[in-house]
């Protein structure tokens, strides 16, 4: 893997000092971005959401979303400056020289056009001098290359008639159809399950290699990038803060953000617990003076607060923008594994649960129980029925057969039909904290609702309890008066946890509660949940499709596939010796941060042993 930045041949992509502004709002989205990519090379562009990855990716095609504008810098693609190109030149470049694989294929494909039309029109637009037969031939060829059928019946399909993976392959086919020199992949695998993701990644990798295409691969997932990229650039708040070859970056990260990010990534193999970075990344317009990472940085000094660090070269092809690139991170205090609490009897139990949507049965006789003080992780690929099971338990999906028992008594299928106490004892935390809190209610009002409903609390008694709850989830009391929109995703999810705790429940059902969060924030929320579970002796049903998470949190793991539980065993046992073939497959395809765990372990040091972090800073 040649990560040599001093390659003799010219880079095919050369971005110099790119700045994209929002002229109306009066601030920049990205600035001072310089990147180079050589033919046949994959550059991984990582960063948390909102840091400007897509903006940079689109700038490579000379495109800005409405309201944004390239205001400085050059974007040289194959020697031509895209930033200064006129409309006609852009038309000729896009799709032909530089192509784009969009983030979300269901919305990126035109729902009203057949896929053949959508692939074919790229060829028609750019290969006008070819004969129709030649273009037809290329159409089928490129479909074969992305491992899609190329028969007429398939060509006549509409996007909605394809699976998510197939849709993504169509967009890849469109991008590769004219054999461009550069492709920009904007998180092409987000939203795909691990197995599909792996196959799509393989396809991209293979095509880039075969056609010597340079790729800019945008992703927020370090594990994915580590398995694909030759070189990696880390972005934070609109700036590239570190870039280097992949191996160097993972082995020797220098920016505190990169290091924090690596620590926050949950690890499937190791016994290392993910550690979050306090706070959250600022959005454009909310960035501070000096180093944007300063407020979250443990090394932050006055210098950092004053000015944004310039580029420092710390090694061959390894550039960092940090005043403290050479300083070691203080030893992170990490959690002591709590002595396992004695597990009690079954708190909640599903017996032979079969659920369906209309005529479509998605759960087939599921038996699963959670003991008192126990955390059971429910894993399985997307669409396997995890959410459906959770909704049944919560009383949101009454269309099921079989029985649900809470402490031995059968529950009514519909939440409304259950007693207040039954409703109180089961609490459900939703996947998306952006959707589960009423946007027009203050945090205090959201928290007051369960207090009013379950304990009849009002007035200052209620307010006092709200304040307690907020403190319990490490939020300030002042947060009671804020609206969800004023909180970051992680803070919102804490509020959601607090709301569930307000009911003093016996069982918490957590449906992918971290999947909408950035890695650095996800780790912090997981820590909080694990602490609470231990301290309050809650039973938790923790649903996730991210196997890497379960080691940290779960006592037992239930693996679900196509509406059936295929394996339920203690976590350690499942991870080390999976019994079901399906479990094995899942484990195999889960991307790992680095093929050589020892290297990472060396960087991150030994597992921190400090007591629980009560509050992130």
């Amino acid at each position, binding site marked *: 893997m040649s990560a040599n930045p001093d390659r003799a041949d010219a880079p095919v992509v050369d971005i110099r000092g790119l700045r994209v502004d929002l002229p109306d709002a009066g601030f920049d989205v990205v600035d001072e971005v310089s990147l180079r990519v050589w033919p046949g090379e994959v550059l991984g562009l990582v960063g948390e959401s909102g840091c400007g990855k897509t903006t940079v990716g689109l700038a490579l095609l000379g495109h800005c979303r409405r309201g944004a504008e390239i205001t400085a810098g050059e974007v040289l693609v194959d020697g031509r400056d895209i930033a200064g190109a006129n409309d006609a030149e852009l038309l000729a470049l896009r799709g032909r020289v530089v192509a784009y694989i969009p983030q979300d294929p269901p919305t990126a494909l035109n729902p009203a056009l057949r896929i053949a039309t959508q692939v074919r029109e790229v060829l028609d637009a750019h290969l006008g001098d070819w004969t129709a037969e030649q273009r037809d031939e290329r159409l089928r060829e490129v479909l074969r290359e992305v491992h899609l059928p190329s028969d007429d019946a398939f060509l006549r399909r509409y996007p909605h008639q394809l699976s998510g993976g197939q849709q993504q392959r169509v967009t890849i086919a469109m991008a590769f159809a004219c054999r461009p020199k550069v492709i920009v992949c904007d998180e092409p695998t987000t939203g795909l399950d691990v197995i599909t993701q792996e196959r799509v990644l393989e396809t991209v990798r293979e095509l880039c290699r075969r056609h010597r295409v340079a790729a800019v691969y945008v992703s927020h997932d370090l594990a994915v990038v580590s398995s694909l990229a030759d070189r990696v650039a880390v972005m934070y708040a609109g700036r590239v803060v570190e870039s280097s070859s992949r191996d160097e970056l993972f082995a020797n990260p220098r920016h505190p953000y990169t290091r924090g990010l690596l620590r926050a990534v949950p690890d499937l193999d190791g016994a290392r617990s993910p550690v979050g970075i*306090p*706070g*959250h990344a600022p959005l454009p317009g909310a960035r501070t003076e000096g180093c944007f990472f300063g407020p979250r940085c443990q090394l932050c000094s006055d210098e950092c607060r004053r000015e944004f660090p310039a580029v420092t070269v710390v090694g061959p092809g390894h550039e960092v923008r940090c005043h403290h690139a050479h300083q070691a991170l203080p030893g992170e205090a990490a959690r002591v594994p709590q002595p396992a609490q004695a597990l009690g009897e079954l708190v909640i139990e599903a017996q032979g649960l079969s659920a369906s949507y209309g005529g479509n049965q998605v759960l087939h006789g599921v038996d699963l129980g959670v003991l008192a003080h126990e955390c059971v992780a429910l894993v399985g690929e997307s669409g396997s029925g995890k959410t459906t099971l959770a909704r049944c338990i*919560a*009383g*949101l999906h009454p269309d099921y057969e079989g029985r649900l028992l809470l402490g031995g008594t059968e529950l009514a299928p519909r*939440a*409304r039909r*259950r007693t*207040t106490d039954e*409703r109180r004892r*089961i609490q*459900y935390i*939703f*996947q*998306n904290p952006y*959707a*589960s*809190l*009423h*946007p*027009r*209610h*203050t945090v*205090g*009002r959201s928290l007051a*609702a*369960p207090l009013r*409903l*379950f304990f009849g609390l*009002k*007035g*200052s008694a*209620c*307010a*006092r309890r*709200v*304040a307690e709850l907020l*403190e319990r989830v*490490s*939020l*300030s*009391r*002042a*947060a*009671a*008066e*804020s609206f969800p*929109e*004023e*909180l*970051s995703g*992680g*803070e919102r999810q*804490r509020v959601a946890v607090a*709301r569930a705790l307000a*009911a003093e429940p016996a069982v918490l059902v957590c449906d992918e509660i971290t999947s909408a969060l950035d890695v650095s924030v996800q780790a912090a929320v997981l820590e909080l949940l694990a602490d609470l579970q231990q301290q309050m002796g809650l039973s938790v049903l923790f649903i996730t499709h991210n196997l890497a998470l379960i080691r940290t949190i779960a006592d037992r793991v239930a693996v679900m596939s196509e509406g059936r539980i295929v394996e339920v065993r203690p976590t350690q046992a499942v991870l080390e010796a999976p019994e079901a073939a399906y479990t094995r497959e899942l484990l195999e395809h889960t991307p790992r941060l680095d093929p050589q765990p020892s290297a990472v372990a060396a960087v991150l040091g030994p597992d921190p042993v400090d007591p629980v972090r009560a*509050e*992130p*800073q």
Partner: protein
Amino acid sequence: MSFAGTADDVALAPIEAVHARRQWLETLRSAARLRRTRLGLLMVGGLVVLAVVGPLLAPHSPSAFVGPGLTSPSKVALLGTDSLGRDVLSRFLHGGRTVISLALLATILGVGVGAAVGMFAAYARGLVDGILMRTSDVLLAFPQIVLVLLLVTGAGTHLWLIVVTVALGHAPRTARVIRAAAMEIVERDFIKAAEVMGESRWRIVFGGIMPMVTSPLLVEFGLRMVYSIALVTAVSFLGFGLQPPTADWGLMINENRLGIIQQPWSVVMPVLAIGLLTVGTNLITDGVARAAIGLDRRRSA
């Protein structure tokens, strides 16, 4: 703003007393910053003021005869006389109250009922939704003007009847719009969350769903108001609405349409006023709609 980490002691106010910024106020406030809204407010505000204080300014009684019919503007009658020889200016100054108040009442009633029905239908789903929507389908298919004709002819001309018929036309339309908006809301997790906790239906609909549909509701209110004004005046214009000798803009057009060549003022003034009123209302509505979209976009960002 970040609330993480700091445990500073804030005085504990009862939750209910915590001042919740209302979405609609916020929308209106940001709408008021748009030029078109201001223009609309100016137009509507001016006409409302005119309607309210107009009668005090009127030089004559709106029903008094000040000269022969259809005379041109003179010292006595600044805008001339209408077909019966009454002062056009005085009648014009008196004629706004009925239009504005009837239209407003009809809009409040129709949009209120429609919104409640729409939200309940969206929330209840299934049979209740089916019945409510079928009913609204029937009401929608029933031509509104026929409804007005039948009811007014059947029960005689009563102001409340005009209000009710116009409202009856609005309710199903509003119900559809609000239902469509609420459909997506009821699927959101925060509604599910309230449901799981066992909140009452009433609270879910009015506390949970309603604050989420204030933008479409405001826009709908504006649109319906425009339509109310048009309909109330059209009914009077057709001669099925307000009764003489009421001074009313719609009626004035109908009464004096014939004399438009000799004495255009008695028609032009009310036509102008109605036009300004509806256009102004529409400008405000448009501003509100834009502001609402802007706020929502900022919020989802």
